[in-house]
């Protein structure tokens, strides 16, 4: 594709380190992936001229044309089902579910086909597709705009489920997801879309299937992903003032789960709590607590805690602050353990 002088200048500017939001990093990842591989196509609801309701696909249609970026009819099962067919033909579709709760009409296509095609065909037919799902709350969204649906996808064999917590990971993990021959559910925490970091593109962080210790500590491990990594880091800073050394692990990948990294941290600190926005019952934290207990029981000094949303539907905007796990709530949970810091 020939580049205009303006576009070349834009590319050069992009190469230098610059503050970038997570939404901007995702946009850059899509742009660079499309430049690198003409099998990558982007479609979904309002992703064309509007650039998506969160502007993650901003400018892509004008850059790549409407045969590579286009607005689909408003039907999520249709978006995923057609992406299955496109991937069967060798394309690498990256499709957007506009909001977490709007992905539910596509549940059957994702669970019965996207997840199962490779196994059904003994690996002869792979579906290299990425399903982008803006997820979670804390943005003052009205009903159905703040769900945390990760446990549904993570409980489905055949899917890879990842959730970045910061702009650098957002760029790197989306590039990796698009390059993957497996279908990836790529969850984007909406409340982090406008978080900023200084990035030099193309930034590459750890492989997307690995968890990462983002703050070292010795007394307790806080495990978060997506929006709750920030919560954990804030709680860790506050705890430090109270004399607690808190380690924070960013899971990054929900399926697969990086047992090695997380168990190593828990063995070091002997205490752990997992934090997520989704309701507690049957939530992703239950899996985290169960497998960490199975593997590390004799290294644990206390039961693994889950600090999560309540077992209720996600609240209306004026009440969501009472639902979301906050750093204070994390500190209260940590205080519930018996400590002997002498």
């Amino acid at each position, binding site marked *: 594709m020939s580049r205009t002088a303006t576009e070349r200048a834009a590319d050069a500017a992009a190469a230098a380190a610059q503050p970038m939001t997570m939404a901007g990093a995702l946009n850059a990842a899509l742009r660079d992936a499309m430049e690198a591989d003409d099998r990558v*196509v982007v479609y979904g609801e309002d992703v064309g001229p509007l650039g998506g309701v969160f502007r993650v696909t901003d400018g892509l249609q004008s850059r790549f044309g409407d*045969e590579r970026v286009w607005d*689909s*009819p408003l*039907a999520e*099962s*249709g978006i*995923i*089902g*057609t*992406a*299955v*067919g*496109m*991937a*069967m*033909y*060798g*394309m690498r579709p990256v499709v957007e579910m506009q909001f977490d709760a709007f992905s539910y*009409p596509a549940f*059957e*296509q994702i669970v*019965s*086909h996207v997840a*199962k095609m*490779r*196994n*059904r*065909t*003994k*690996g*002869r*037919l*792979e579906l290299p597709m990425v399903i982008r799902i803006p997820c979670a709350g804390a943005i003052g969204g009205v009903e159905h705009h703040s769900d945390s649906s990760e446990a549904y996808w993570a409980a489905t*064999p*055949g899917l*890879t489920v990842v959730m970045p917590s910061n702009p650098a990971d957002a760029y790197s993990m989306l590039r990796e997801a698009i390059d*993957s*021959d*497996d279908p990836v559910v790529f969850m984007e925490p909406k409340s982090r879309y406008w978080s900023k970091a200084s990035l030099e593109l193309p930034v590459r962080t750890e492989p997307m*299937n690995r968890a990462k210790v983002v703050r070292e500590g010795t007394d307790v491990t806080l495990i978060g992903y997506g929006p709750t990594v920030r919560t954990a880091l804030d709680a860790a800073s506050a705890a430090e003032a109270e004399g607690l050394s808190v380690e924070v692990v960013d899971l990054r990948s929900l399926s*697969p*789960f990086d*047992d*090695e990294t997380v168990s190593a941290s828990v063995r070091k600190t002997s205490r752990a709590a997992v934090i997520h926005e989704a309701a507690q019952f049957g939530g992703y934290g239950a899996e985290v607590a169960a497998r960490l207990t199975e593997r590390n029981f004799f290294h644990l000094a206390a039961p693994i805690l889950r600090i999560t949303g309540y077992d209720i539907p996600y609240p209306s905007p004026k009440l969501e602050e009472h639902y979301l796990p906050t750093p204070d709530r994390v500190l209260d949970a940590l205080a519930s353990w018996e400590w002997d810091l002498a």
Partner: protein
Amino acid sequence: MSLNVEHHESRVLPSEKPVRLLDNAGHALRGPETGGFELPATETLLELYRRMVIARRFDVQVTALTKQGRLATYPSAYGQEACEIGVVSAITADDWFFPTYRDSIALLTRGLEPADILQSFRGDWHNGYDQRAHRTAAQATPLATQALHAVGLAHAARLRHDPIVTLTYLGDGATSEGDAHEAFNFAAVWQTPTVFLVQNNQFAISTPLSRQSHATTLADKAVGYGMPGYHVDGNDVAAMYAVATAAVDRARAGGGPTLIEGLTYRIEPHTNSDDPTRYRQGREVEHWKRRDPIERLEKYLVSEGALTDEVRAEIGEAAEALAARTREAMNEQPELDPLELFDHVYSTPRTALAEQRAALEAELAAHRTEEEVTAR
């Protein structure tokens, strides 16, 4: 001012009376009933006859093998051969076919081996053939989901300027599913080269069409999406083939999708575990048996002098040979490796799966040792 300024094909309701080229007595029809479609050449009809006879022999054989316990289940298409064979015969080997669980005989026409088609029904693995090699998707069990795959693949092919067509089969029950609606709509909006065949066999397991749809014909639905629809006698293979060929040609030429409804009847139960006496009268089945698609074409071909005893015998032999090959294949019990369960889920290996695989391997080894001890 008239609102109906255009008289595009997609704005015209399908005829309430199905398009028909041969009547039940095997007479070639003329006039409005043909919907303007030409009777295919006798040579073509003879080939379709041959395919239908072989397909039915296969279907009967597999039903028998299922009753003998060789297969876990088999959804028969007995009586639906005009739809099954007539429409799939209209596409080429380069085109893609997206069938359902009931369409095994169409796969046979597509050139797939009985052993490969039946692997899933025998319970070996969920899909037993190479989809890419045969350009034939796995037989879909969740209703209408495969129609979206057909639309997506057609769209991808168009973006690459490959002149292929996708064909998908649905049942009357599947037209109630959201995915059918979404597939019709996406195909029409994107103008994909896709042909939808709705085999209206009048029952979704036990639920009759009257409890499925209030539309005059299922083909009427096409008009709402802005694509042409045809209501066709689904037991007239001449009509099914002619209408499908026109739809495939139009799709390939860039004319977009078509919805074809073949009005037929499911003679056999839904599967071997179904009991149709609970929901329909035997005399209704007898009524439809008298409208058999193979007998109808046979009468025509005999009257044309095209179906000689020699040809009939040759077709019969081919059908018996295939039935024998099918029996042979299903009498084999291939050794299955339980450890393969872990091998194809992801392209990127996973530690947790490797651990579970090792656990099953140890369990199998322990079991073998136990058996050896018992045997001593």
